C-alpha cells in the first residue's frame, strides 16, 4: 500500500456501503434482463434504456469499487481519455459501416 493509503482509506466507502452498491448493481442487472423480455412491447425504447443502465453500472464499479471517485484527477484523465478515444474511434467505425449505408 502506498503511503497515502491511510488517508485515502478514510474516504473510501465502508464494507456496508460496498454491499449496498453490490445490491444496487444486482437490481440494475435484474431490470436489464426484465427490459430484454419487454422488448416486443417497448420496442425501440429498450436499447437506450439498456445503455443507460449499463452506463450507471459502469460508473458505480469504476467510481466506488475502483475508487476513481477518490483518486487524483490525473488517473480519471488517463482512464477517461482511453475510454473516450476508444468510444469515438469505434463509434465512427460503426456509424460508417452500419448507419450510413442505410441512407444510400
Amino acid at each position, binding site marked *: *500500500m*502506498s*503511503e497515502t*493509503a*491511510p488517508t485515502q*482509506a478514510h474516504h*473510501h466507502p465502508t*464494507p456496508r456501503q*460496498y*454491499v449496498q*452498491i*453490490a445490491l444496487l*448493481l*444486482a437490481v440494475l*442487472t435484474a431490470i*436489464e*434482463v426484465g*427490459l*430484454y*423480455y419487454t*422488448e416486443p412491447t417497448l420496442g425501440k425504447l*429498450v*436499447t437506450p434504456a*439498456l*445503455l443507460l*443502465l*449499463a452506463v450507471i*453500472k*459502469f460508473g458505480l*464499479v*469504476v467510481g*466506488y*469499487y*475502483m475508487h476513481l471517485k477518490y*483518486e*487524483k484527477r*490525473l*488517473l480519471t484523465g*488517463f*482512464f477517461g*481519455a*482511453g*475510454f473516450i*478515444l*476508444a*468510444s469515438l*474511434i*469505434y463509434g465512427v*467505425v*460503426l456509424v460508417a*459501416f*452500419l448507419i450510413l449505408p442505410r441512407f444510400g
Partner: protein
Amino acid sequence: MADLAHDLGHSEHEGLGVENRKLAMWIFLASEFMFFGALISTYLLFKGKEGLTSPVPRELYDIPFTSVSSFVLLMSSLTMVLAHNAQGRKDQPATRSWLLATALLGMVFIGGQVYEFSTFVHEGMTMRTNAAASGFYLLTGFHGTHVLIGIIMLLSLFGISRRHGGLSDANGLNLELVGLYWHFVDIIWIVIFTVVYLIP
C-alpha cells in the same frame, strides 16, 4: 539525511503524485478499452449481417443463464473490494478469505463460459460457422482469458499471503493493482452483457 533519502525514494515512486505502478496500471487499463473496443465493434459489424450461415449467436443465447454468470462476476467485484478493504485494516485472514472467494467466483464464471461455448458448438455454431460466430467467440474468449489471468493473480496473492502469514505493504499495493484489473474485467463484461447479449 534519512528523511532526504526517504523523500527521494518517495518521489522516485510517485513522480506525478501517484504511485508509478498504480499509474501504469490505470494507463494499461485505459489502453485495454482500445483492445476490447475493436473486438466489440467487429462483433457488432457482423451480427446483423444478412446471409450468414445459421445458427448465429443471437439464436442460441440463453439469457437467464448468462444473467446468472453476470451476477456472479458482479459479486466477485464485491468480494475483491472487500479483500482490499480487509488488507487496508491489516486483517490478513479476512483478506485471504475474500481473495479466495473472488477467485472461486471467477472460476464459476469461467465454468459458465465453458458450458456456454460447448453448448453452442453442440448446437452447430463453431468459430467457422459465420463471421458473427467468429466475432462472438473472439470477444467473449478474450474476455474469459482476462478473467483466467485475474484468477491466477488472485491465487498467487492468496498463496503469498498464506506462506508469509499476510501480505506486506508492497504486496498490499499488488493487491490493489490486481483489484483494479479485476474490476476492469467486470466493467468490460457489463458492456459485453448489454451490447452483445441484451440489445436487440
